[in-house]
């Protein structure tokens, strides 16, 4: 997990199979605060479903889910902590 200058927290889970990405997201969520932007990178397609279920459950907001060349990028705004 890297903290970038823009205040985004980058979580690089590329190459990590399920449940790697959702594990990394849950760990980052533990360390986050309201207002943080989490940017999750993953290659495991299962993350699409898992992250939607996670956001619905936790009350956080998915700003975007994009996919290029198999790399899935999910941007989340922490609204509830």
């Amino acid at each position, binding site marked *: *997990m890297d903290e970038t200058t823009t205040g985004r927290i980058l979580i690089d*889970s590329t*190459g*990590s*199979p*399920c*449940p*790697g990405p*959702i*594990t990394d997201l*849950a*760990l980052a*969520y*533990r*360390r986050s605060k309201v207002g943080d932007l989490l940017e999750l990178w993953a*290659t*495991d*397609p*299962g993350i699409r*479903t*898992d992250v939607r*279920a*996670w956001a619905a*459950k*936790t*009350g956080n907001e998915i700003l975007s889910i994009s996919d290029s060349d198999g790399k899935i990028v999910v941007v989340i705004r922490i609204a*509830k*902590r």
Partner: protein
Amino acid sequence: MQKKLLIIGGGSAGTILANSLDRRDFEISVVSSSFGHLFQPALLYVAFTNVKSHIVRDERSLLPPHVNLIHDQITAVDLNEQRATSANGAVFPYDYLVIATGMRTDTSQIPGLSEINEKYGDYHSSIARAQRLWKRLDSFPGGTIALGQGSPIIKCPPSPLEGIFLTDELLRKKGLRDKSRLIFFTPFPRAYSASPMNEIVEPLLQEHGIEVLTFFDLDHIDPATNTLYSIEGDKIECDLPIVIPPFKGAEIEYLPVDVVDPDNFVITDKETLRVKGTFNAFAVGDASNLPTSKAGVGTHLQAKVVAKTLSGHPAKFDGRTSCPFDLGNGRGVFVNGSYEAPVTKARPTRTNHLMKMAFERIYWSSLRGRLDPVMDAYFALTRPRPASKEQEPASTNV
């Protein structure tokens, strides 16, 4: 000339590695902060079935005589200067370093957890804690039991569910199941983190009347009322909380500082097992941040990969795991996976349960390399098939 190899940790990984190298090539020192080597999977049976067998052996007895075993705690490692320093002030220079420090439970991450685990015990910390949990379970008169992991990082991923299945079995045997409610909580979206195995497990949980609370990421506990609160805003009230504590890597200060993640796991190349930015330092077993299960089989195979590489035959770790999973009531299943191959559904059988029971005897011999041909044959026979392009890659975090 012999090369100086320093292994930090005398657990599974350190012991297997020290037994796998040619003494003519290496002067091997193992620095370990423990004296006894604990067969950790047995903690499950100490806590849930009151097993009393001999599950600790002297670390010295598991190492060849030429290996220098030092009981001390490493507090600092300077990867640039190639030396480690201990709590006693001893300095260990090395040509090659292997970090095999495992991981340890850390109750401080969850307010209220120290009190709860002190009172009720747990089955991932120590024999004493596991025995305490057995006492609580044995004298449980009926009521609500909540069991789950306190953080997403877990040693032996099937172990939380094994705990709830064995609790169910125990209460049935005692005729207390009708008077008890069992709640399994997990930070993951489903009861078992890897989907294909979850398809096996979920019907069993239903069949046994075990309630499942997903996305329950433990935030804090009120020890006065045994109430567990999640980050997601849910709560569980219970009579007996069984909480697997969060884990973290050994408390060692590294130079450069960026070779460990926030939980002190060593950042390691997932194939070569080299520590980030180094050529002569490796991490094996639970100590690393590899995207694979923290479990014994991976640990075994990683130690063998590093042994080959150090012996001049560069090898790669394929992420292989193979976890025996006790489903209670005499049934078990093996969870196989690798970086490239999905965990597939496997049928629970009685044979798998018996294999898990025979695990302890195999374990001690396997540490010393005595079963290498048998183990190699087993791994080859059970090698998981890589996912086809269309298939979703599944988990190796079994």
